């Protein structure tokens, strides 16, 4: 029973790790940067409105570039 629970917990932990980090840790970093920027800029509406989408585009570009290099 304990063995089954342990296996289940390990499988769940691995699933969460793969989902959040997997082989694209930079995506998680980008998301954290965007969330941090959103908090920092919450009171400065206009800057946030422009910066948050641009951060997402830059983050996507970085991740695609990294994926491109990894496939070489």
């Amino acid at each position, binding site marked *: 029973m304990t063995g089954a629970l342990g296996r289940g917990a390990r499988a769940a932990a691995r699933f969460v790790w793969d989902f*959040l980090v*997997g082989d*694209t840790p930079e*995506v*998680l970093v*980008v*998301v*954290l940067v*965007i*969330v941090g920027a*959103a*908090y920092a*800029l*919450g*009171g400065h*509406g206009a800057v*946030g*409105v422009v910066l*948050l*989408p641009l951060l*997402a*585009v830059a*983050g*996507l*570009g*970085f*991740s*695609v*570039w*990294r*994926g*491109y290099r990894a*496939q070489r």
Partner: protein
Amino acid sequence: MLELPYVTATANATATSTIALLVAVFGASLVEMVEALTLVVAAGTRSWRSAFEGTALALVVLGVTTAVIGIPLAHLLPIDTLRLVVGALLLLMGLSWLRKAVLRGGGRLAKHDEDAVYVRTVGALAHEPGDKVRDGAAFLVAFKGVLLEGFEVVLIVISLGASSHRLGLAAVGAAAAAVVVAVAGVVVARQLSDVPENALKTVVGVMLTTFGVFWVGEGAGVRWPGDDLAIPVLVALFAASAGVMVLLVRRAVSGARSGAPAAPTALGDVAS
């Protein structure tokens, strides 16, 4: 009378976000269910009864998970906290889907091949013992396939539905896609390998990234001009950006094949 333009604008914004939500949920569910169908059909080569039972149980588990997690989330958490958390979650999924779709669209990553998955799964099942009426291996493959492919759909339904207080609408969108795939699967009686999966993944990636940025901003106190009307603007921005990146990757790939050194530099310019 003076409030009429405001009322019209609000109605337009609501309709826009409703359509965007339905497209995101329906598209995501369609992609995942097509992948699940391949595994169910492969399991069906051993026992259709067990494959259907595994599918049905997985759908029940997914439905209960949506209700048990989604309904309390929608009603108990403060809306700003909820939007920040699910916005981050949607961004994570959206950027991952878009990244993969761009690399596949640009020819840098092999496209998802349902026929190959089917052949591989049938081959693996051939080594399992069992009988034709009730087959444990077929049940497990169908159950795990639908559950794992459906889990991401559940996350999307809960995230999009709970944040906009339209959990029911999001669930209907996902269920509609599941029904469409199931009916198509029954009609053609095989895996759906002709579905333009990468195009669908691109659309869903754009929508999830849009909602992610929108709700992270809203949750942190950013006020979008036009409220929900900012959503189509964000959709256009991310779709255009993904399109440009596909072209750059394609150029880089063909440049690398022909030995031209300039193409990878062009891709590098995007990242910097």
